[in-house]
């Protein structure tokens, strides 16, 4: 064995120690460098991350604005609704608890299934074991009471109140008010992410949809600190939500309800406008449906039932139903004849019951088989003689007729504050060329003159045209919003009504008088088509009947009597009216689907509207 050289070894060790010390120092420098990198160079990045980690913004949904009628009757409000929830971490045996719960509260198998599925996927649904997990939505008062008594038996189970939309009048004005429903995936993409962060519902139809911005309000937020498992630690900052504005509609709910009642078994639509302002007094699409069905999701069977109902309760006939105006266009066509100087009021036409164009064998029938004999403009309108208007239309030509009717809003959107309004059709040469790529024929001018053929109007357009006649050309924009109001400050916001340049100023007063007199004679004249409803009226009013063919009658076929036809093949009955004549307070358009002639069912509905509005009472329903 070699002799150990302690001195040499010691020197070797010292050298190694120095190298080791240098290495240690360098490696510590590496660590410090990394700390410098993280804490100084990347400080902002990590600071932001740590803030985002702990601070969560919890949106506070605003209270949705209420909807009232013009007199302050509530049409839509918010009401507490109760749901049964369970906090998993507070419940020892969840299966046992739910089993016992079912003894006192009715929980369907589907609800149970949904709950169990939710429990299995808490994380995926962004829920935690310390969150309220809903078992059943919408408890009845009875169930709430029963649970309250047995509360002590169910630790960790709660009844939670939340606010739900309610429509106290159920199906009244359903197509106007519309409803809210749960926000769906498509809406989620279009709605403002921040504004709707706390909201579960959004307006789906009607006023609820059109004035969504007004009703919704501004979301509030609570900035809270949460730990890694999302448990609340403390509140940092709070901005309260700003409730949505309350909406006052122009609707008179009493009138609305009376008119809805008046329809009886019939379906159809009524629009009543105040001619001086354009405010819509009633807007009825019958039948309606209970708006409350949609708030928390309608069951698929119920929805199917509504959808397959032959009466189409979900269909908004007011702005989306398009009907041939029939003879209700005659006052406008007559006025066009006077305006363009094609006829004079006293010019007479002989009506043999049909009309023939030169060199064409086709017979254009008058509704009165044996003819009206000699007819002037007044009689043409009052007795609704088709032959008179075939002749007038032929003289007028489609271009002038189309231009003139267009000024009354036929075939155009009225711009009412409801979503999804349809245009209707105002036929013209350009229209036919564009849509059908065919030339215009004379025969088509004739049937357009009596409101048949291509012409389609919505009940709303018809009412607007009637209001224009009542106003003698003064345009008002039909609208449903009277004003909306900030619930806190009571600041009112009036609707922005654009009426610029739409008045019909170049029709002479005399011409207006002639037409309005003729419409007066429709109800008050000896031979007026609606003389039945004008007979006992304590006020004077003007009107016009109309019949819209649902099914075309062939050339050689005898027109059948209404009673002989299958219900769905019967003609639609129309009536327009305004009253009183000198200072009109109300203009009405009525369509009774498959009601047969305008005088038999549509006119009585109009009378009910007028009575109710002008006299404050009306009687009953049509048969």
């Amino acid at each position, binding site marked *: 064995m070699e002799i*150990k050289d302690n001195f040499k070894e*010691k020197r070797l*060790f010292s050298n190694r120690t120095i190298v*080791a010390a240098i290495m240690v120092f360098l490696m510590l420098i590496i660590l410090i460098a990394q700390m410098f990198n993280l804490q100084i160079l990347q400080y902002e990045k990590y600071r932001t991350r740590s803030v985002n980690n702990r601070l969560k913004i919890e949106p506070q949904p605003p209270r949705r604005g209420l909807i009232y009628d013009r007199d302050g009757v509530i049409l839509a409000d918010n009401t507490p609704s109760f749901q049964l929830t369970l906090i998993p971490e507070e419940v020892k045996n969840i299966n046992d608890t739910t089993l016992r719960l079912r003894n006192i509260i009715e929980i369907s198998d589907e609800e149970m299934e949904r709950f169990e599925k939710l429990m299995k996927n808490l994380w995926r649904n962004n829920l935690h074991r310390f969150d309220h997990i809903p078992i059943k939505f919408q408890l009845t008062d009875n169930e709430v009471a029963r649970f309250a008594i047995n509360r002590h038996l169910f630790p960790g189970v709660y009844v939670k109140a939340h606010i739900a939309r309610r429509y106290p009048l159920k199906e009244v004005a359903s197509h106007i008010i519309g409803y809210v429903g749960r926000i769906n995936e498509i809406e989620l993409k279009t709605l403002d992410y921040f504004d709707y962060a706390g909201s579960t519902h959004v307006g789906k139809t009607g006023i609820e949809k059109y004035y969504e911005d007004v009703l919704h309000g501004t979301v509030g937020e609570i900035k809270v*600190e*949460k730990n890694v498992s999302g448990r609340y630690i403390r509140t940092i900052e709070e901005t309260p939500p700003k409730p949505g504005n309350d909406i006052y509609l122009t609707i008179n709910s009493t009138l609305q309800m009376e008119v809805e009642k008046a329809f009886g078994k019939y379906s159809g639509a009524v629009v009543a406008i105040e001619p001086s302002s354009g405010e819509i007094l009633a807007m009825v699409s019958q039948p309606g449906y209970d708006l409350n069905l949609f708030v928390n999701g309608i069951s698929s069977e119920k929805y199917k039932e509504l959808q397959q109902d032959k009466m189409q309760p979900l269909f908004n006939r007011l702005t989306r139903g398009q009907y041939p105006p029939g003879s209700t266009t005659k006052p406008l066509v007559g006025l066009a004849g006077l305006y363009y100087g094609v006829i004079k009021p006293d010019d007479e036409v002989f009506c043999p019951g049909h009309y023939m164009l030169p060199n064409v064998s086709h017979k254009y029938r008058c509704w009165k088989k044996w003819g009206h004999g000699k007819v002037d403009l007044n009689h043409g309108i009052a007795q609704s003689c088709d032959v008179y208007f075939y002749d007038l239309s032929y003289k007028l030509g489609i271009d002038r007729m189309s231009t003139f009717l267009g000024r009354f809003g036929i075939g155009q959107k009225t711009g009412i504050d409801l979503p999804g309004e349809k245009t209707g059709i105002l036929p013209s040469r350009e229209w036919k060329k564009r849509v059908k790529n065919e030339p215009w024929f004379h025969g088509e001018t004739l049937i357009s003159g009596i409101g048949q053929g291509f012409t389609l109007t919505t009940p709303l357009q018809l009412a607007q045209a009637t209001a224009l006649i009542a106003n003698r050309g003064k345009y008002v924009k039909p609208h449903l919003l009277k004003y909306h109001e900030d619930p806190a400050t009571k600041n009112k916001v009036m609707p922005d009504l654009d009426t610029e340049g739409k008045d019909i100023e170049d029709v002479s007063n005399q011409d207006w008088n002639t037409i309005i007199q003729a419409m007066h004679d429709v109800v008050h004249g000896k031979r007026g088509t609606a003389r039945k409803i004008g007979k006992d009226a304590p006020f004077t009013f003007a009107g016009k009947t109309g019949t819209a063919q649902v099914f075309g009658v062939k050339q050689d076929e005898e027109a059948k009597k209404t009673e002989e036809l299958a219900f769905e093949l019967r003609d639609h009955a129309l009536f327009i009216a305004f009253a009183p004549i000198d200072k009109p307070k109300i203009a009405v358009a009525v369509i009774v689907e498959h009601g047969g002639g305008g005088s038999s069912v549509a006119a009585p509905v109009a009378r009910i509207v007028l009575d109710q509005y002008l006299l404050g009472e009306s009687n009953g329903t049509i048969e």
Partner: protein
Amino acid sequence: MELNSYSAPQQLKGTQIRQLSFIEKTLHLDTLLLFGLLLMSCIGLVVLYSSGNQNMGLIYKQLVRMGIAFIIMIAIARISPDTLLRWAPWFYGAGIILLIAVLIVGTKSKGAQRWLNFGLFRFQPSEIMKLAVPMMVSYYYSNKNLPPSFKQIVIGSLIILIPTGLIAKQPDLGTSLLIASSGFFAIYFAGISWRLLLTATGIFASAAPIFWTYFMHDYQKQRVLTFLDPEKDPRGAGYHIIQSQTAIGSGGTYGKGWLNGTQSQLDFLPERSTDFVFSAFSEEFGLMGVSILLLVYFLIIVRGLFIGTQAQNTFSRLLCGSLILTFFVYIFVNIGMVSGLLPVVGLPLPLVSYGGTSMVTIMAGFGMMMSIHTHRKLYSS
């Protein structure tokens, strides 16, 4: 000795011992080292109070562990290095037997078989090896003429590889690497030639792929992969390292202040009192705190290395050098791991992390260093 005649004055100078104080003479403790360790322990308690949600129970538990660890240190410091030398082979032999026992009758915990259950307490034999391996290697070289021959290096390596292999089989990669490095440090201080050192390093580096393919478990591979790209799996494996870096980075220059670290207080930081305690510290005390912490560590290491240079025989020198460098490995691996420089290996931050076993081992190691320093004779023979 032949060279004594002219080396004596120098040796006298080198081993000249100043007047020993009471602590040094009677308690056999080194004042500076003791001060550094106490300071670190206090820092550890301060951080623990915050990271443990101000739970005094945790503090008391840790205080008890520290007490035990310090008592063990004091006890070992009283044992002279000569006794340690004599014990080394027995200690090492017993350790090997226990490691084999673990593989046969050990208790499984978290997928690894590391524990021996003695009814009253559980015990990890690998902890013994953290001390036994450097002791045994130092023992082996104590009577050799250094620098060692190639054959002696091979034998030294075998002393290291046997327990390392046994521990790696449990599997406990972190500890086996730590023990391997502690043995290696002894060989390094024994004077392995630089050329051989570089060659060995080269061989190890090129063997890494083989190691990867045949010896590493999937979870270990996963750790390495996660380390390379933590953002790839931010919710799973990468979560720890992302949250840890966020805690450190968001501390900035001066930190968020004691008890105000949101990452740790709100549980975003995992293992915030144990392996990731450094991140909790960095979040609350910033780069300033980190610098001070690392400075204290550096001073402890420098003192340890100095004690090695003052040691009077080969065994003491090698043992002291390898123990203090192993201490540094703990620090470097832990901080490197929590800051994203190294893959996640379950090593605690010595003296600061909450937990007992490793603290006892580390303090026992310091006890040996203190023994080496306070049992010096006036003249070496």
